[in-house]
């Protein structure tokens, strides 16, 4: 069974592109949702996931509060969260990492490189033993 990623982004385009990229190139199974609230729902009902790819600027619950809520509702620490953001300021990126994310991927991203970027970030923050994540390629 391929690893599963929960993809949270309010922009339909981005969900479509990232899903295609991750599924067809990276071999992930992608569960796309459009808001933080839906993400909380999916994490409980649709799990388990191996990773969460989380947009930062969303109407309603934004990325950071979604992250906090996911963790508060018992999303296990080994499920890594990676932010996806169109804010490229160094200060923004640092703040996001400080929230406990495994990494940050900047928009616009190269869809051909996205699966590798994601895998590398997860690899870098995961204990290699027992990982069922795809190796970076």
């Amino acid at each position, binding site marked *: 069974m391929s690893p599963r990623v929960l993809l949270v982004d309010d922009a339909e385009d981005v969900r479509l592109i990232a899903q295609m990229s991750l599924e067809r190139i990276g071999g992930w199974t992608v569960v796309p949702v459009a808001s933080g609230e839906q993400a909380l729902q999916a994490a409980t009902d649709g799990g388990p996931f191996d990773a969460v790819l989380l947009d930062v600027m969303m109407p309603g619950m934004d990325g950071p509060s979604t992250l906090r809520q996911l963790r508060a509702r018992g999303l296990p620490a080994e499920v890594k969260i990676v932010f996806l953001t169109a804010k490229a300021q160094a200060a923004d990126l640092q703040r996001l990492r400080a929230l406990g994310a495994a990494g940050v991927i900047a928009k616009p991203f190269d869809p*051909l490189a996205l699966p590798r970027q994601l895998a590398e970030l997860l690899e870098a923050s995961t204990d290699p033993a027992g990982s069922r994540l795809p190796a970076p390629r």
Partner: protein
Amino acid sequence: MSERLRRTRGAAAVTQPIGYRQATVALIAFVLVYVSWQLFDWIPGSRESVGDLLLVPVDSAATLAAWCASRRVARSDRLGSFWRWIAFALAAETIGDAVQAIYDVVLHRSPYPSLADPFYLAFYPLLLFALLRITVAALSSDRRAKTTLDAATIVVGGGAVVWYLVLGPTALEGGQGVLAMAVSLAFPIGDVFLLAALAVVLLRHSPVALRAPLRLITIAVVLGIVADVLYGDGQLHGTYTSGDFIDTLYVLEFSAFALAGVRQAPPDAEEVGVATERSQQLSPHASWLPYLSVAIALGVLLGVERRNPFFPDVSLVLIVIVLAVLVAVRQYVAQRELLRTQAALRHSEQLKDEFLSVVGHELRTPLTSIRGSLGLLAGGVLGELPEDAANMVAVAVLNTERLGRLVNDILDIERMAAGSLVLEPVAVDASELVEQSIQVVQATADAAGVTLRSDTAALTVLADADRIVQALVNLLGNAVKFSPRGAVVTLTVSPQDDDALFSVRDNGRGIPADRLEAIFERFRQVDASDAREKGGTGLGLPIARGIVEQHNGHMWAESRAGQGSTFRFTLPLAGEPRTPARMRARPLEQLAQV
């Protein structure tokens, strides 16, 4: 002569006003005739009557000039009403002089006070109102407080001088009727208020169109004040006669008013709108002029005090205390206003930063969709494309990437210009910066067949690593772009005095000497086609220089045509005390010089 003047003045009534020079010549001629008549008494016994009579035409000329000026500036409400009230004031003076002339020439008697005095006195409130019309718009509370305090300081300072010099001795000497004394006191009191109002007007930025006339009005008012003080003194001591030297001062005063009216040019269309806002600003002189009035007052008082038996020292001390309190309060108000302005400035800086952040996000969001869908097409994820289509998509991908870089660079430049690019410099090894930047550029260099070499001295610099790497990447990227295949780009770091000197050398085509500075300007590549061919944004060098300068370093280029170029910059070594812990971007003006 007065006939000629009146005729000349008559011309000002038509839409084409008479020239300033003509008016000056006519008035100087008039003054000369007046003065020589006073001195030589051309028709024996006519001195006094002529002295009185000639005041009327010069008053009328001034009134007419002011009225014409009010018509000329009619499209600015404030200026129009200012000149209208000046004309009213001058008309009152004209009537006063006419009445006085009737007393002297027709009735041959000079009562004091006379029916002329109410008109003379009406001059003060009317002129005061005119001056206030130009000053008082909707002022903020701090500015209103400052204006009031300035006026109060000047009134107290000026009042003290007038009191010690004129009023006090007059009041204590007595010997005159109560009415006469009241009238002769009214003149200098009116003068003090006028002086205060004038000072307040001069302390503000007046509309540009009013500046030249305002200088002449100032001269007129000062002449009038001197004349009034002498006149009041003369009347009380019974030494004043018509056609006195004092009257010459009045002639000069109203000549100056007349010239001011002629001098008033119509305001610019723009001025009509912005004048109100500009007039809110105090000129920097506002901060020292009230103090000067205090100093003058005290100086005069000290000079008078010694030979003045009427006043005990305590009155002097009281005046000093009042002035000191006024100045102290003003200082407080000014300081409070400054703090508020700074807070507002910080707020607007923050708003600008937030705006740039949102702009960045809004531009990158559609770019993400475009870049993503093109990338999937180009990568063949959605099926192989025919060759032509693949080429087209590749072009689109390249340019989308360039657009993305442009967005980042423009936002960086804007942040620097707004002073909101905050650096957090720490002590960092130069070799680390070099390694990181070479790592970023390596792939591009490999693709271009260019070798990257580095030679780094063991130095620790004070730098925001991310930003310096960004600057180095820009320099290295340029060097690679402009190097032929097989060439070598060298990055060296060496000590130079208290700095580390970073040098990026290439063997490219070089930069003409006259372009070595221009390339650091925005969108000013050596060759206009570079942007297209090399995919640069035209902002890489200005950003790199901006980053380095924000680190208190310098960046420059050296080159000989055909022998490659070297870009160098300095960074302070760690442990240098001159570097603040947090550095802010410099303001826009300095960046514009980049």
